[in-house]
């Protein structure tokens, strides 16, 4: 049996699992006041959500995608284009971004799921690079190599209350509201029978098939759901940065989320946030004394793959569970 949290069997027993949304809310509300800088906190929030979406596919369904930059990036670009070019209100733009990311995930997922096993990582990476080159060439829409600019949201009108979105504290809590809604959505998925089905596929695909699950359709749905959450993270990133760099679409961004998810603990609910926090803290600390921080972060990641493949949170859960 796996010690991973969130399976349908142990949901009533485990305090941390039953209360995971309130716990996340408390922890994330406190984050800007605990971390050295508020800029770091908002990055943890956005990349943590990115990793949560990714984890749905990698951690829970067991599919190693290297193409999630496409959904993150498209979420960001659609938000920027919707606000900057079409004057869509700030709260509606992320909705369009999520829809666009979901549609793209249906196409890329549909194609990649046709291949099996270790081909999956290659195919998702190559298809996402296709999106990157489209983003590079369609420069009249995306700004090409210079990135997309000119869609700054400065004030937010919330039922008559007007407040500045440029203020970092306001910005953090607005983004947090979106993120918590997405976390609740993911938590509901994991608690559903669908959540149990994807874990069954991860543990033993042949057996899940023999039990009568439509493995291909379940995988595709998981891919799309993962793309939706990832797209929202991208949209929030665009609102935060007020620019979409072209590199958002590059496979290095996919690699970033893979590393964060594994460092924190793939297949656990809190793991992705722990991983995003650990990664960004390491970047923050190492880059203070060397511009080559990636060397150290990469080496630590390699050590995790060999010795701690369950990640920080996953290992902590395993120790607590006595396994």
């Amino acid at each position, binding site marked *: 049996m796996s010690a991973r949290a969130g399976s349908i069997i142990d949901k009533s027993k485990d305090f941390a699992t039953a209360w995971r949304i309130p716990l996340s809310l408390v922890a994330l509300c406190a984050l800007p006041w605990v971390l050295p800088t508020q800029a770091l906190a908002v990055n943890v929030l956005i990349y943590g959500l990115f990793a949560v979406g990714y984890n749905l596919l990698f951690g829970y369904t067991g599919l*190693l995608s*290297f193409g999630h930059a496409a959904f993150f990036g498209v979420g960001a670009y659609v938000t920027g284009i919707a606000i900057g070019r079409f004057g869509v209100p700030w709260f509606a733009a992320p909705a369009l971004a999520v829809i666009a990311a979901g549609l793209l995930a249906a196409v890329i997922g549909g*194609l*990649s799921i*046709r*291949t*099996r*096993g*270790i*081909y999956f*990582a*290659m*195919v998702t*990476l*190559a*298809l996402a*690079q*296709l999106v990157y*080159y*489209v983003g590079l*060439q369609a420069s009249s829409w995306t700004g090409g190599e210079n990135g997309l600019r000119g869609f700054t949201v400065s004030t937010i009108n919330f039922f008559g209350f007007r407040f500045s979105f440029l203020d970092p504290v306001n910005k953090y809590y607005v983004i947090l509201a979106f993120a918590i809604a997405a976390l609740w959505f993911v938590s509901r998925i994991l608690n559903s029978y669908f959540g149990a089905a994807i874990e069954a596929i991860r543990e033993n695909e042949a057996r899940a098939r023999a039990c009568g699950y439509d493995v291909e359709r379940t995988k595709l749905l998981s891919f799309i759901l993962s793309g939706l959450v990832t797209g929202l993270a991208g949209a929030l990133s665009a609102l935060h940065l007020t620019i979409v760099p072209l590199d958002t679409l*590059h*496979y*290095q961004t996919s*690699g970033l989320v*893979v*590393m964060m998810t*594994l460092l924190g603990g793939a297949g656990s609910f809190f793991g992705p946030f722990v991983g995003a926090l650990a990664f960004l803290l390491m970047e923050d600390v190492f880059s203070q004394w060397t511009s*080559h921080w*990636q*060397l150290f*972060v*990469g*080496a630590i*990641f*390699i050590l995790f*793959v*060999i010795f701690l*493949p369950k990640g920080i949170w996953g290992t902590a859960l395993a120790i607590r569970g006595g396994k």
Partner: protein
Amino acid sequence: MDAQLVAMQLLSGVSLGAVLIMTALGFTIIFGMLRVVNFAHGALFMIGAYAGLFIAERTGSFWWALLLAPIGVGVLGLVIERLLIRPLYGRSPDDPILLTFGLGYVLVEGVRMLFGSDGVPFSTPPALVGVVNLGIGFFPLYRLFVIGVVVFILVLLWLALEKTKFGLVVRAGARDPQIMQVLGVDIRRLWLIIFGIGIGLTALGGLLAAPMRSVSPEMGTIVLAEAFVVTVVGGMGSLIGAVAAGLLVGIVVSMTSLFAPEMATIAMFALMALVLLIRPQGLFGRAGQGA
């Protein structure tokens, strides 16, 4: 649009295909034999170019670099297999992917540390500068040289795999490692050697590409995606698949750049998407394989 132009473009497609075969060859061999997807492929390709640059500067000769750089980087490959890849055999097939991705990260940053982040020019060796008149037009001599080297390497590989006892063991080992172990073959040593040869070929690819592309720590980034496209289009990590797919992709990219230059790179990935749609196992893969 005259026939001569199309013929020239076709030839440059073949030449691009040769480069693509060379960039994918090391990756394909490791993938085909060991089932290890080497995400550090691009980084080792780049290190091949830097190693060539380093040796060419010290010895003053491109030919020494051509000989020594693949051997040196191949030895690095042996070390990588022994220390990092070997502990992962028998674990999830995703683990080597994750590990080599992290390794690529480290190698690229290491090269930035040693040689700086900026690109370095790599001049074409004096003996290979210039163009040749082929009757239909002028073609760069260096590109013809690359086609020649690729053909030479392919013939050598084919002879080694099909005509020697070592090749027989390798082919059998790729088909059923367990049986080979039972028969008393040290399969781990075999995998070590194949990994080293694969990395050496990857480095050779980087070195050959150096005069055509600029040498920089990021030069391997696109190569990784290219190797994936060639492998997926060809199917199953087979040599013949990689050769056919490399040529096909090269010609498609070259022909696209004749009509719509901005679509050239996109065409390469679109071709892969098309192959996935029609023949998910790749052109030379058999159905049911690829798991």
